[in-house]
């Protein structure tokens, strides 16, 4: 399958969305809303519930299923309030010793006058900054699109896993094409060169694992759910067994290792 085919699958309107995963994986999910500063951003969903009997904090960035829901969810592009709500819930998770489980499906952070006025850059930066030392385990799943800094803001924890046909990139292939080739029509070539598929990103060690879609995620959703549950369960087992300092050191090194450089004299 070409990278572009993966892009189409990741964006497919019938693809399961973060709430579909949450409903299957989390029991007694209680949504918690608002950033306590400005408003409530519906592009970010947050709350608490049980994962196999353990209380956890769940956060998601999600687009909508149809046009009505997409309008409510701003097509899955959070405003600063969304990131500040996520951060508030992460700090709350730290306080109550709850692991954080994150699902991501976003084209990227919102680009609008209001987002700039309310500090989109600052909101994302604070997520990265606080995630670095949050004293509780954080695992993220990219279920559809993982668009740039808007996705990274909630993928800066201990592990990131991708669904087989999800994508994770610095910007959309269309955007990449128009910036680097000065023409938006080379999106297919761009999607190949950018290394945005789960296989490429596993090879680059950007992610820890790939969740199989078992041929067709819509038909075999239950099997994918079992794989995600196992992944979370293994993760929680591992992090429970390790000391907090070791967890945070590993989290620091997870990002510290990126970027090979050389000397040129």
């Amino acid at each position, binding site marked *: 399958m070409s990278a572009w085919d993966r892009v189409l699958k990741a964006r497919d309107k019938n693809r399961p969305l973060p709430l579909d995963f949450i409903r299957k994986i989390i029991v007694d999910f209680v949504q918690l809303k608002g950033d306590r500063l400005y408003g409530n951003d519906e592009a970010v969903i947050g709350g608490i519930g049980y994962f196999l009997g353990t209380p956890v904090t769940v956060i998601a960035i999600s687009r909508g299923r149809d046009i009505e829901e997409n309008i409510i969810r701003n097509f899955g592009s959070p405003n600063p309030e969304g990131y500040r709500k996520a951060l508030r819930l992460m700090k709350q998770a730290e306080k109550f010793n709850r692991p954080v489980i994150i699902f991501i499906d976003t084209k990227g952070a919102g680009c609008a006058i209001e*987002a700039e006025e309310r500090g*989109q850059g*600052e909101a*994302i930066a604070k997520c990265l900054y606080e995630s670095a030392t949050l004293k509780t385990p954080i695992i993220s799943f990219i279920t559809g699109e993982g668009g740039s800094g808007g996705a990274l803001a909630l993928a800066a924890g201990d592990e990131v896993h991708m669904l087989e046909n999800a994508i994770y990139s610095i910007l959309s292939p269309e955007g990449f094409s128009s910036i680097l080739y000065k023409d938006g029509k080379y999106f297919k070539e761009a999607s190949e060169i950018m290394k945005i598929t789960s296989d490429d*990103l596993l090879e680059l060690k950007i992610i820890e694992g790939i969740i199989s879609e078992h041929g067709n995620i819509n038909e075999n959703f239950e099997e994918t759910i079992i794989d995600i549950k196992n992944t979370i369960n293994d993760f929680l087992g591992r992090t429970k067994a390790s000391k907090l300092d070791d967890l945070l050191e590993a989290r620091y090194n997870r990002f510290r290792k990126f*970027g090979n*450089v050389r000397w040129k004299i």
Partner: protein
Amino acid sequence: MAIFKKKRNYFTLEGNIDELNLPPEVKPSIPEGVWHKCKACEKLILKEELVTNTYICPKCGAYERMGAKERIEAIIDEGTFKELSANIVGMNPLNFPKYEEKIEKIQQSTGLKEGVLTGYGRISTLKVAIAAMDPNFIMGSMGSAIGEKLTLLIEFAEKNSLPLIIFSASGGARMQEGIISLMQMAKVSAAIKRHSDKGLLYVSIPTDPTTGGVTASFAMLGDIILSEPKALIGFAGRRVIEGTIRQALPDDFQSAEFLLKHGFLDAVVRREEMKEYLHKVLLLHEYKS
């Protein structure tokens, strides 16, 4: 108006113009490097005068973009700057076509190895770790080399209990390094968190222009965030937003003054007063020489 479109009744010769051996066209020209045209008032100013005036137009007071070297010279006491990681350059993690050639060319034309200078020195005798990004090096875009140099500097500052000062100037992430560039945002932010957790001061100074992934990471993480008059600072590009809302944005949108008004800067400081301002802030945090 057909009366003016008189049909020509004479022959034209189909000669190859290259063979005509015409003398090269002489254009009136300004000797390179002597004069500079101000982008604001469009007046010609002596380059030398511009440099001694810290890249502020002597005619109208407009700020020109400043290179990393010039920035450090304007802030750090003469003779006290020691560069760190001077020889670090990036690789080509995605095997992006012609990326190495592009870097090579820019290295030659700018005399820089990458888009940031890092090191330590003194501000009116007070010791600081300092970085300055250079907008002339692929728009100061952040790839692995910039991410690594900054992280090494921040870790150095943390180990040596030094305050940290970063002048950013960047179009955001370096596209040619794709997702690896994105990871630099998290890497640098995590290093800043560790520096901060030791109780050390970080003053961030986003300068013209600071956008995208740099705004969405270390540029917005200072204990104190300053900028210069009229500097462009934002997350999304102006044209992206204009394209989405299909209307022109006001001139001051994403300017330093706009950010100050919305609560994202502590102060807009004039370039000629920046060193004194930083010195005062360092003293207030009880850093000693």
